[in-house]
Every structure is written in C-alpha cells, then in structure tokens.
C-alpha cells in the first residue's frame, strides 16, 4: 500500500516539475474585446455592453466605481508598492469569446496549449469533478461531469450564473462582501468579469473537487474575477483554484472577490494555490458565511506575486458553526505576503481554528494580520490561533498583527506565535548525510510547513512541495 503511494507521489512530483518550468510563457492574442487603458464610467459601459449585462448589473457597476473613487486605500497598507499602483495604466477588460467552450477541442489552439502546458486537462481527466479555466477576463473553458448536472449542481462562470440563475444569484450576490467593504472590493464590483458561480443543492455531496484555473496572459492588465459559492443545507463541496501568469516588465493587477455561503449543516472547503509571477499585485477579498452547524475551511497558499494582500474571513453566523483558516505564505526576494485570517463569531457555540505558517527568504516580508472577534453576549465560543514564521536569511522579515477582541466569560481563546530560523546546525547535519545545502534548506522549510501541506489534496501538496523547493533553491543559489 505505502509503496505504491510513494511511487505515485514521486511520479506526480516529476510531472509537476516539468509543468512548472513551463509556467513562464505567454502567447500572442488578438483580443476581440479590449476596454483600453484606464478606468472611467465609459470603461464600465464598454464592459457592460460587451458582456450584455442586465440593467441592474450595469447600475451596480457604476455605483461600485463611484465607491472606488471615494474610498482610500486601507490605512494599514503601508507598503509603498501598493501606493505606487497606477490604476489609470491598467487594462480592465480583454476577451475574445464571451461564452466558455465545453470541450477542449473547441478552445482556440493557443489558449488550449496554455492550459495544456499547465496540466489542466490532464488533472481534469484524473481527479476533478469539473473545471473552469479563465484566460484574462473570460473563461475559455467550463465543464462539469454530467452526473453532477443531473443532481442540480451548478458550476458556471459568473455571467452565466447571473443570467441563467438570477433567483439564487441575486439573493446572495454582494451579501457576503459588500461593494463598500474596501477599495478593492469596490473596484472588483465595477469591472468584475469571470469567476465561478457554484450552487450545490440540498443534500448533494460532491466527492471530487471543482477546479478553477486563473491565467493572466496580457501585460499591464487587471483580472477581476468574482466567485460566488452557495452550498445548500447538508451539501458538501471542495473548490480549488490555481493561478499563474508569465513574467512581465510592467505591473499586473489581480483583484478578485470571493463570496461563500454555507447553509445549515453544509461543508465547504476552498483551496487556493497562488503562484502569480513576481510583478502581479494580488489584492483579494475572500469571505464566507457559515450558518447553523456549517463547516467552512479556507486552505490558502500564497507563493507568488509581488504583493499579496488577502485575509480569508469567516462569519460564524449560525449556532455551532465551525470555521478553519489554514494558510501558508512564502515570501521570496522582494516579495510581500501580507496575509492572515478573520474569524468573526456571531452565534453561540461557534468555533474557529486559525493556523498560519510563513517562510521568508532573502528580503521577503511575510506578515500575519488577523482578527478574532467574540462579543460579550455569546456563550461557548472557541478560537485557537497559531502563527509560526520561519526566517531563512538574515535579511528576511516577518511581522504578526493579531487583533483579538473577546468579551464574556464563557468563551475560550488561545493565541500562540513563534518565529524561528533555519539553523546552521540543521543544515550541517543534513549536509553531513550527503544532501547539498540548497536541498537541505528546502527539506527544512518543507518540514516546517509539512503539517499544513498535508491538509491539501495530494495533487496539490506535491505541487506545493515542489514550488517551495524551487523557491528555496533560488534563495540559496
């Protein structure tokens, strides 16, 4: 048993290494739809026209743009890089076909090749219940296994969701992350395109994961997908997303909004492996609402990007709801990973668990920013938070900003944090066994995050190990 599993892991690792070496490429595309450079009410109208938006969505977009103009950048974003972001130099909508294809054969050859090089169709065949692949502003491909469709599962892009399933879509859209939440949620509200709409009907348990893949191909461009996941009572689903982009000279923006609604007794797992190239500003708002006895798990891994600002949040709204936020951040040279978690307890007997691990290489900076809130009137709530940081080089940095607000005397909160370094003794010990320094370093780093990596589905944990090995080897070389 164990033998074949190890062999399988090895094989997956080798395959993945090939695919990763090939992530930094792009293809030339003549876009049929191009909203041009810069952002104005005309840009919004262009996007609404191109997408055939319903009137309420067009209005929603214009209102969101006004909100974007009014709102300042969050005060705690002290990083100069984010303040240097010039919104007037970005292209906000680039697309060819607006309707995704349901067969890879019909996807245009360049784009199909892109996703093939990233290994998406192969994964789909092997272990996924459904796949959506976004290329710049729109999905190029969207398909789900037939039997799930028969059970009433919906897995489409956001435009199709709002056009074909307006009752469910409108009921939940914008309820978890309001446009006014922050500057980037307002921006997303104005120009959103792509992203998934998922609905799992009552009692349906989707065994295999649904996968979305986000690819940025164009330069000085912004990708603004908007994902809404509604899981009905007693239902279960795992949604996974991966993201990559080629390296450009200019800045690229990725600013998504993800809303998850977990109704009574449902279970939702949302897995992210973010590996944007080092010029991407990744400013994302992710939030979930857990109703009575629902369980939500964010598993968030940030390896790429120039700056990531992202704090997956769970609002524990129903009695006995459970939330878990597990995150891994890897800050390589010049990168800023400003990540964390929010657990907002709103009902009795709710529990949350936050585990955050970060690794900083060279001049990389990894911060944990978190909010845990349990108000006075609640009983029987529990939170456990653990943040561990590993510093690899003397120039590596880390910071922890936990905000814990707990009242009442029938609630339990626990917070632990640690900062450690890869020690010379560890490296020497491993080298003495014949393992070269870079590999010793990556073993040590992988060991540090190992317990969290195990939480990822196997295919992903193999990817992550490999990605981290690559970062480590770069840092040591």
């Amino acid at each position, binding site marked *: 048993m164990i033998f074949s599993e190890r062999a399988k892991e090895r094989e997956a690792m080798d395959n993945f290494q090939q695919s990763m070496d090939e992530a930094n490429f792009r293809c030339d595309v003549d876009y049929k739809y191009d909203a041009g450079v810069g952002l104005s009410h005309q840009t919004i109208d262009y996007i609404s026209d191109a997408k055939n938006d319903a009137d309420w969505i067009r209005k929603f977009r214009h209102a969101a743009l006004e909100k974007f103009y009014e709102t300042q950048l969050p005060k705690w974003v002290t990083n100069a890089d984010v303040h240097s972001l010039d919104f007037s130099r970005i292209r906000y909508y680039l697309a060819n076909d607006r309707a995704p294809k349901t067969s890879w054969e019909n996807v245009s050859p360049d784009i199909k090749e892109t996703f093939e090089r990233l290994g998406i169709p192969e994964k789909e065949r092997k272990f996924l219940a459904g796949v959506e692949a976004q290329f710049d502003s729109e999905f190029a491909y969207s398909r789900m296994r037939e039997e799930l469709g028969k059970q009433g599962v919906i897995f489409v892009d956001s435009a199709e969701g709002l056009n074909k399933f307006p009752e469910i879509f409108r009921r939940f859209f914008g309820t978890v992350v309001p446009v006014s939440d922050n500057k980037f949620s307002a921006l997303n509200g104005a120009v959103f395109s792509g992203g998934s709409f998922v609905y799992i009907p009552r009692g349906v348990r989707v065994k295999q994961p649904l996968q979305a893949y986000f690819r940025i191909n164009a330069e000085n461009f912004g990708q603004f997908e908007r994902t809404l996941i509604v899981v009905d009572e007693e239902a279960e689903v795992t949604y996974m997303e991966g993201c990559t982009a080629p390296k450009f000279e200019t800045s690229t923006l990725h600013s998504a909004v993800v809303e998850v609604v977990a109704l009574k007794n449902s279970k939702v797992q949302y897995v992210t492996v973010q590996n944007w190239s080092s010029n991407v500003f990744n400013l994302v708002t992710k939030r979930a609402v857990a109703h009575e006895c629902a369980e939500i798990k964010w598993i968030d891994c940030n390896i790429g990007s120039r700056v990531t600002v992202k704090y997956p949040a769970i609002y524990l709204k129903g009695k006995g709801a459970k939330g878990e936020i597990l995150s891994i951040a890897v800050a390589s040279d010049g990168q800023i990973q400003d990540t964390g978690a929010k657990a907002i307890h709103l009902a009795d007997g709710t529990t949350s668990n936050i585990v955050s691990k970060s690794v900083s290489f060279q001049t990389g900076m990894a911060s944990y920013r978190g909010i845990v809130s349990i108000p006075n009137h609640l009983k029987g709530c529990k939170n456990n938070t653990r943040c561990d940081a590993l510093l690899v080089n003397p120039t590596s940095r880390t910071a922890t900003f936990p905000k814990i607000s707990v009242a009442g005397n029938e609630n339990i909160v626990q917070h632990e944090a640690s900062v450690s370094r890869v020690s010379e*003794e*560890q490296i020497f010990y491993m*080298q*003495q*066994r014949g*393992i070269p320094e870079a590999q010793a370093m990556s*073993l*040590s780093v*992988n060991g*540090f995050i190992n317990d969290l990596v195990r939480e990822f589905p196997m295919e992903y944990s193999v990817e992550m190990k490999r990605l981290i090995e690559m970062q480590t080897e770069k840092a040591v070389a």
Partner: protein
Amino acid sequence: MKALEIKHLKVSICGKVVLEDFSLRIAPGEMHAFLGKNGVGKTSLAKVIAGDPNYEILDGDILMDGESIIGKRPDEIARLGFFLAFQNPVEIPGVSVANFIRAAMRAKLPKEAPFSAVDFYKELYAKMEILHMDRAFSSRSLNDGFSGGEKKRCEILQMMMLEPRYAIFDETDSGLDVDAIKIVASAVNNMRSENFSALIITHHSKLLEQLRPDFVHILSAGKIAASGSMELVENLEKFGYDFFREGEGA
C-alpha cells in the same frame, strides 16, 4: 592509497587551537577507538573531518583515499563515503526519518538515476528490525522529541542505510542502556568488512568491550597521548586519564 589519513593537523575554532600536530591513519577494515576527557578535541576532530565550516584548518591535511578533503563542502565529503554519527543529533521537525534517509540516499545518485521506493522501504524495515526499532518510527519527524537512546539508534540506522566507507561514532553509547549498547554493537560489528573503517569516540569501555577495536588511542590536549590495543582500555580503567598525560604515556 585506500585510507583515511590525518597529517599534522592544526585546527582552531573561534581563535582557540583545539588540535595541534595531530596525525592518524585509519586503513580499510580497521576499527579505532578514541578515549579522552571532555574538551580534549575528540568531537572537534570528528567535525573537522566532516567539513564543519566553523573550524579553521591552520596546518596539515586530511586525505580520504589519497585525495585531500580540505576545502570540500560537508555534503561532498559525505558523498565520498564519510559518515558522522553525531553526539547530539539535530532535530528536523516535519521531515520524517524515512524521507530524510531517502533524500540522503538519492543525493548520492545521479539526478536521473532510478530509485525504487519499494526496495527502499524493504531495506529500511529490514535494518530497523536489526536495531529493534518499530516500523512506525520511520514516519516520525527526525530526532524531534526522540529520547536520547532513540536519537542514537536512528544515527546507526542512517549509517546502515548509507553504507559509508569511513564512519565516526561520536559518543554513540551515551544515552544508550546496556541492552541498547548490545544491539548497536552487534549492528556495527555486522558492518565490519574490508570496505568499512570506523573510529569510535567514547568515555566508557562498555561499547568497546563488545566492538573490540583494533587500535585504542588516548587523547589529551589535542594530541594522541597513547596508542595501543584493548589493554590500554584496561589500564585506563585502573589508572585514570591523568596517567596518560602527554609525554608520560605507555
């Protein structure tokens, strides 16, 4: 010239000389033992041979099969066939014993070389059995939360898997109870062959009684104060280290 040769070695750490004009030759198949008080340079010698960058080599040379290993990285020296069983094995949280040994074995092979996971586990479990180790042990984090005895046994397991040509055991017996010493000694004795040489560093005679080394050396202040056979151990038991201070030895 198959041998591990140390020639007129002078070594310092943090400006303090710890070995001076130190020479020793260990030929293939030989087992040597080092006895000496704390702080006489036993561990320093082991670490210098292993290539610990904290030591500065001021004079002399170390040759492995005729080739100088001075200036080589620790992993290069290890891959030439040298193994050091550490006195204080380092904890590597999150890296399992099996994965670590596998990484070390793979490091010796060319990148594209095939490596059978099935054969690896067969071999690993067989060797663990010799050392009376439970299989579950292989999935624990390396040295993390191990007892002193478990750490030492795990060092021997690694050595058995990596099959070095030259090995140094730095106080492997400390932390082992009488039964464990027997198990470890019989495992090491099983490895003895023309292709395996060892240097045993110890304070006690227990392990040596079972290993019966070919040569016994007594170290004092960075130099060999006396060399001989197992009889030397018996004299040591009788007279103590002071009897063998430099220049006064047998």
